[in-house]
């Protein structure tokens, strides 16, 4: 359908709109030589993103130190040294942990303070994103995106490391939407809920949460597994940022404006 050369000069895009839409004369700004810019990230998204980036970093580092305190995972309501563990995580080295030398007390102080930041930062961001329609406009998967032809095009574009819809560079592609939705609506809430299940105070306040995960040691195991899913998300996210052009991507998350790289959309 498309060869690479054609894709470079006049690609067809996933919303199926005609290529003529891509002609520079249709751009918002008439200046044809200036690089195109698209407003991609609103202020609440940018504030949440950077606060969350720092928070997730601290949570993983301090969490690995907490794991070092008792590197055995169990299923069920109880579990201690004399019980059968299903997995014994390795001792994480000092260059991966917060603090860098063994200190459970300080790791907990980092972890439990930033847990509050994680949860309340996510809470206000979710409210803001419902109000400003960020979720509805930018993360909602449209039926057209799920048509086989659109899916195939999305996969091919990804294989070429082309992540932006040149007609609408501010839009997220399908894989992005799915990844962000899983992180926002599944992984981070799961981290928070399993984390709360480890609190004896919250076990009294919300015993149903403990039952939901099948007991405290199960909740602890799920907390650990979900943490690695967050790590996987972060790795894929950072690789995608680099492949998509880290200057433009980080610039967009700082200023809101995505400068569309030359050769995309022209």
């Amino acid at each position, binding site marked *: 359908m498309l060869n690479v050369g054609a894709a470079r000069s006049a690609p067809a895009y996933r919303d199926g709109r005609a290529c003529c839409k891509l002609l520079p004369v249709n751009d918002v700004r008439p200046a044809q030589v200036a690089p195109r810019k698209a407003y991609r990230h609103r202020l609440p998204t940018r504030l949440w993103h950077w606060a969350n980036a720092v928070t997730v*970093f*601290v949570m993983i*580092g301090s969490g690995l130190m*907490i*794991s070092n*305190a*008792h590197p*055995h995972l169990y299923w069920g*309501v*109880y*579990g*201690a*040294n*004399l*019980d059968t563990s299903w997995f014994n995580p390795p001792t994480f080295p000092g*260059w*991966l*942990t*917060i*603090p*860098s030398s063994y200190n*459970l*007390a*300080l790791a*907990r*102080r*980092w972890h*439990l*303070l930033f847990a*509050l930041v994680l949860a309340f930062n996510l809470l206000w961001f979710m409210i803001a994103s419902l109000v400003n329609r960020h979720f509805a406009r930018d993360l909602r998967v449209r039926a057209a995106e799920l048509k086989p032809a659109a899916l195939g095009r999305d996969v091919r574009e990804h294989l070429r490391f082309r992540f932006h819809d040149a007609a609408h560079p501010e839009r997220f592609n399908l894989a992005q939407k799915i990844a962000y939705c899983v992180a926002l609506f599944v992984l981070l809430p799961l981290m928070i809920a399993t984390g709360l299940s*480890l*609190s*004896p*105070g*919250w*076990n*009294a*306040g*919300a*015993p149903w949460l*403990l039952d939901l995960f099948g007991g*405290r*040691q199960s909740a*602890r195991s799920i907390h650990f597994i979900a943490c690695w899913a967050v790590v996987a998300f972060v790795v894929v996210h950072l690789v995608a940022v680099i492949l998509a052009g880290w200057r433009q991507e980080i610039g967009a998350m700082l200023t809101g404006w995505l400068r569309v790289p030359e050769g995309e959309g022209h």
Partner: protein
Amino acid sequence: MSAVLTRRRALLGIGAGTLLSACDRVQDFGPARRILDSGDAISHGLQRALIDRAALAPEYRVDQMSPVFRTNGNANPNTPAYGALAANGFADWRLAIGGLVARPLQFSLAQLRSMPQRRQITRHDCVEGWSAIGQWQGPLLGSLLKLAGVQSAARYVVFHCADQIGGAPYYESIDLIDAFHPQTIMALFLNGRPLDIGHGAPTRLRVERQLGYKQAKYVMGIEAVPSLAGIGKGKGGFWEDNVDYDWYAGI
């Protein structure tokens, strides 16, 4: 730190490592450290505000109990005084209740055993991450405190223990909400048997909505106080004083 180690650390420090070691510097910086330490009071305040103050910790069925309830921390105070008490079955042991109370009292083990008891199968969560479930039985701490008559100026209850770590006496403290909580007991029995020395004989605190290090063993005295200042190093417990664990261990 040696130059070689510094260089190795610098090499490892590329990328995330640099940021991680920055966290070490942050926690050594006084004002930042105070922010870090504020999480303790925030968690305490949030839980007191959001959770019913009488909400019960989960209780379990007999078939959910740990096959073996491991010991932790000191397994024996190993002092001559404690050894002498243990040698004749704690017949000479007395639990003293004092501080800001109307009537300072002393209870013998037989007196405590003759009081109304609460029996509960609850989960013990170590700060390190493991959990064990056992059946505890003993009089409510609140009943003992009511007999002594806690004065209105009291804010905390301190537990003085027979054991020491590195020469420092073990002690713990809780607020009055946890002290009068319906599951907070002075446990005399574990799994139907009198508390053994490894688990804190003759009595240990069970404060079921907090972590294991709050469950003081070998309790000798209970003191109602207006402030934690002046006790130990002033942070409310041995681990709080010496290792910087949070005073509020509900999380």
